[in-house]
């Protein structure tokens, strides 16, 4: 019996070998390699043809510099702002679409497809389309609003205005991604047996009571799931920012000039682009610490109920 398990183990690892080799070299090793790089920096003496083997050891100075860097702290704040806007809006939009679709009307599956469709499209390209829609003066959004007497966007549009840029990015994302949450909510809602609602009807419950007492508790796990994926999404936000705002527009916060949508993922990319590989690696460790903290808090939250 033991011998057969040994044999099974050999076979199993052979089957997993292609996956594990890629996993180990491109996902597991990078976590440690990134840690190593975060203590090094590209110096003027670094050989440009083998940058990564010739970076200078600098101890904790990458981390210390980040802690003193206003832009870094701002990137965390704007990531938080992104998450605070995106997560509740997308959950609300998803839930609304799911409730709308939870009927037996003819053609409801057609609407389901329509709502879900934008989800599978390329983020960068969708961002470019929104850039066009949001443009000042000529963009369709500003033209419609001007017709309605709202001239707020006439000068700068949505994305060149520090007050509305993040909202514009998030609105585009919510419309693109709401279908994903909708599918999950719909699956959860449709798992609830009709008899439960009928029993509530007999007890004289109204629509709102039924929603609050039956539907809502059953969709809580989905909300938590969307909370986690939304948080990770905020920390990974890049293509939408790159397409729509490039981290801008510039605005002044606490006497310093910052980019209104310079979220941490984009900030990391900018460091990377300037060949500040050590700093970028250090940022990624900060992001990892944040993610683990948030995940831990989420798990705690899950176990409390």
């Amino acid at each position, binding site marked *: 019996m033991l011998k057969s398990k040994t044999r099974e183990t050999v076979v*199993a690892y052979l089957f997993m070998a292609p996956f594990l080799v*890629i996993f180990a070299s491109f996902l597991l090793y990078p976590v440690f390699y990134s840690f190593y790089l975060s203590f090094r920096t590209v110096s003027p003496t670094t050989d440009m043809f083998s940058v*990564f083997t010739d970076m200078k050891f600098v101890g904790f100075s990458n981390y210390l510099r980040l802690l003193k860097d206003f832009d870094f702290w701002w990137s965390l704040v704007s990531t938080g702002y992104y998450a605070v806007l995106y997560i509740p809006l997308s959950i609300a939009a998803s839930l609304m679409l799911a409730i709308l679709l939870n009927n037996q009307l003819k053609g409801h599956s057609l609407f389901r497809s329509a*709502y879900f469709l934008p989800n599978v*499209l390329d983020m960068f*390209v*969708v961002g470019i389309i929104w850039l*066009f829609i949001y443009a000042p003066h000529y963009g369709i959004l500003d033209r419609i609003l001007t017709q309605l007497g709202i001239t707020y966007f006439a000068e700068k549009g949505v994305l060149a205005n520090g007050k509305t840029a993040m909202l514009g990015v998030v609105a585009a994302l919510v419309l693109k991604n709401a279908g994903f949450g909708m599918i*999950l909510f719909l699956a959860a809602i449709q798992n609830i047996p009709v008899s439960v609602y009928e029993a509530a009807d007999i007890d004289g419950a109204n629509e709102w009571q039924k929603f609050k007492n039956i539907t809502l508790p059953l969709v809580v796990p989905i909300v938590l799931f969307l909370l986690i994926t939304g948080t990770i999404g905020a920390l990974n936000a890049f293509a939408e920012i790159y397409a729509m705002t490039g981290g801008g527009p510039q605005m002044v916060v606490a006497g310093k000039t910052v980019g209104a949508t310079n979220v941490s993922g984009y900030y990391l*990319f900018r460091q990377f682009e300037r060949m500040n590989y050590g700093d970028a690696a250090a940022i990624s460790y900060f992001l990892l610490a944040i993610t683990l903290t948030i995940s831990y808090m989420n798990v705690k939250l899950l176990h409390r109920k």
Partner: protein
Amino acid sequence: MSQVQGQKTVVFVKSLILYSFMSVGAVFVLFPFFWMIFVAVKPEGQAFSLTVSFAKPLWKNFVSIWCDPSYPFGRFFINSIIVATSGGLLTTLFCAMGGYVFAKKEFYGKNILFWFLLSTMMIPGMMFLVPQFAIVTKLHWINTYRGMVLPHVASVFGIFLMRQYMETIPSSLIESAKIDGASELQIFGKIIVPLSSAVMTTLFLLTFLFHWSNFLWHLVVNTPDSSKLTIPVGLALFRGQYQMDWEKMMAASCFAIIPIVIIFLLAQKFFIEGLTTGAVKE
């Protein structure tokens, strides 16, 4: 009698209201998509005009995008297809092999390995940017398909999806094949794969999509003069060139988006099933 009539009217009004709300939702969600097509078929220089006017012939912008020698769009398109297809196939194959042993074999370290793999799903993808780039640079994989694809074919989600599904395949099938003298590879190839074709299609489509839109990675592992640029990266690098030509930009966007729309419409059942399975694991 009139009460029945009244109820009918109530039902009718109710569904009318529902339909109008549902349509409003669809208009909002799909607006960018329609706007892209609307602008892509406009005559040159009229991207911002709201009058309904069409380029002659209708596909003029698409042709001029495709034929512009300074903007090798056909190349980008082929690259996108190659990268997404190979990425999808490799991920599906590797994950099917891995998911199979997690579903059907008892081996040392199984549980620990599984939980370890799942826990890595929490790591934000941005974390891998610098080290993966360093590794690919050291391997001299810059501007190559393998550099664009291989670092992203180990999908833990894929392993999970496969395991979930393959657990439902009866073990007796495997046992009887063993008695008939089938080898491990034969069991995998002739029993597991055919029985899992639906879930493998799902994973292929989801990973095809992932690689099609793996924008940041394709942006960093290619230099601007690379011959391996994908459509979105091509769009990004040539944005300056087409900044004023919005109708051409939108025509180019159509090429990035329409293939995915077609795939989605043909196979939406697979997408939706895959995503639902992935999410309700708790």
